[in-house]
């Protein structure tokens, strides 16, 4: 308790609520997570490198990284348009559409996975028209990208919406009255204001895509070296009872995710300061 020195407060329950919070956090989150790091710490460096840098694992990193990057980029572009339309324009059905943006958060990932496969497979809803044209989506890298775009869709929209709502109309009016045309106003006044939120949304969408499993495994076809994502590789190693190999890859992924989380926090801190000035 000496470390967590509290200010004097008349409200009771500090010890009880903090104690429970720390105990629950420790038991459910921190102790199990540390198990992954400790298990890997017991490996020799050569074993670790062999586990996390074999050609098959490298191919999975590449696919996970570039498919997530592409999905987050597409979501940043269309998310900006969707957020703009939902905040600025009026049209029938807008409230329903606004609520529906959260569907990828609410729909279980396995359901999304089989639904996307039913659409893009060879005899699927769109696949039966696309495959004769030579466009293969299911069981290719593009399929992975489509699934990751679906699950990352709400992030950019939801981080941009509140910022767009709070933008002062005076900003645009001032720009216009000083002689800027609409494009100049958007490029030089609006986009710099929106940029921190856009970047946050992009990073959140990217981070979610890196770890995604359920929606991808059905549509990707899971071919080693080609359409195998990193989380699937962890499952494969577990099924072969290669716990050390699985954990070593997990530690690489955890390090990347925590790095991203830190980056997102820094962006938000920076944007708050930027806003105050």
């Amino acid at each position, binding site marked *: 308790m000496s470390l967590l020195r509290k200010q004097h407060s008349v409200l009771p329950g500090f010890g009880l609520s903090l104690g429970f919070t720390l105990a629950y956090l420790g038991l459910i989150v921190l102790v199990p997570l540390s198990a992954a790091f400790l298990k890997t710490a017991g490996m020799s460096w050569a074993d670790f490198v062999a586990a996390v840098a074999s050609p098959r694992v490298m191919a999975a990193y590449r696919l996970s990284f570039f498919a997530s990057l592409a999905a987050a980029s597409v979501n940043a572009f269309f998310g900006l348009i969707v957020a703009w*339309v939902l905040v600025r*324009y009026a049209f029938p059905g807008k409230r329903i559409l606004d609520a529906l943006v959260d569907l990828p958060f609410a729909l279980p990932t396995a*359901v999304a996975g089989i639904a996307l496969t039913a659409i893009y497979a060879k005899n699927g809803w769109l696949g039966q028209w696309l495959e004769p044209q030579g466009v293969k989506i299911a069981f290719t890298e593009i399929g992975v990208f489509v699934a990751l775009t679906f699950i990352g869709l709400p992030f950019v929209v939801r981080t941009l919406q509140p910022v767009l709502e709070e933008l002062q109309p005076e900003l645009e009016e001032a720009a216009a009255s000083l002689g800027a045309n609409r494009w100049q106003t958007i490029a030089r006044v609006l986009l710099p204001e929106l940029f921190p939120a856009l970047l946050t949304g992009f990073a959140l969408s990217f981070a979610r895509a890196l770890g995604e499993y359920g929606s991808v495994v059905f549509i990707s076809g899971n071919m080693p070296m080609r359409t195998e994502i990193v989380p699937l590789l962890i499952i494969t190693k577990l099924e072969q009872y290669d716990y050390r190999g699985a954990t070593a890859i997990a530690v690489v992924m955890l390090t990347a995710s925590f790095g991203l989380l830190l980056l997102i926090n820094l962006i938000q801190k920076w944007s708050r300061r930027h806003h105050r000035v």
Partner: protein
Amino acid sequence: MAVVVTSTLVKPRALAGAPLRATQDPRWVRWLLTGIALGFLAFFLLLPLAAVFGEALRRGVGAYFAAVGDADALASVKLTLIAALISVPANVVFGVAAAWCIAKYSFRGKSLLTTLIDLPFAVSPVISGLIYVLVFGAQGWLGPWLIEHDVKIIFAVPGIVLATTFVTFPFVARELIPLMQAQGSEEEYAAITLGANGWQTFWRVTLPNIKWGLLYGVILCNARAMGEFGAVSVVSGHIRGETNTMPLHVEILYNEYNFVGAFAVASLLAVLALVTLVLKSIVEWRHAHAHVQAHAR
């Protein structure tokens, strides 16, 4: 000042051929952007949703209800409900306790604690399952002891509950912390000053103030708890009728090429998702309403 007031009252956009306001886009831009947004959302949201119900009903209503009423399907529904009924209340108690100590007191390490609470969101679902295997699995820290005492956690219901609790861990807390911070503690101080004890203050003052935020967190937490796939997949062992939750049962049926069965169970989960979105919208609306009323007072 008077000039500004009149100009807003006249509403220039109502006049035909009047120049656009600085915040307005030309009509063709509005149509184009709305079209792109609607097309993107229809393609990525409505089409998959339609595919779930379309595929589920492909062989007719009879086949659909036969698939939903299947014994293994019902067992998976039951297990999903059990997992949610344990993990959601556990995370509610945690969320309230965490929000109470973070919002009502100041202490060192508070921002670190807030960051740590969000940690499970940054962890891949597969890794969320893996870490429990490392603790409770046969090869894990507690494995030998558990085997000796004949306690099954991994490949059994407790493992599923633990993994579900982990992935839904932050939902309630992250809803309540900013809400209780924004509300401040004046009403609680008043209650204590008037002689209420801690529990009375919580039940009669704090809880009524945070009820919409709490409900919002519970709705999101429950949706994720019932729909979680990756984490539960690692710890479940996939024993039909015993350790299969609904999303896992969808996978098994799908891999057996029983597409009607898979999509029928998936359609139940899709309905759950739609109900979640409706409830969420209602709570958002009520919450905003309550907020406005509180400010009007």
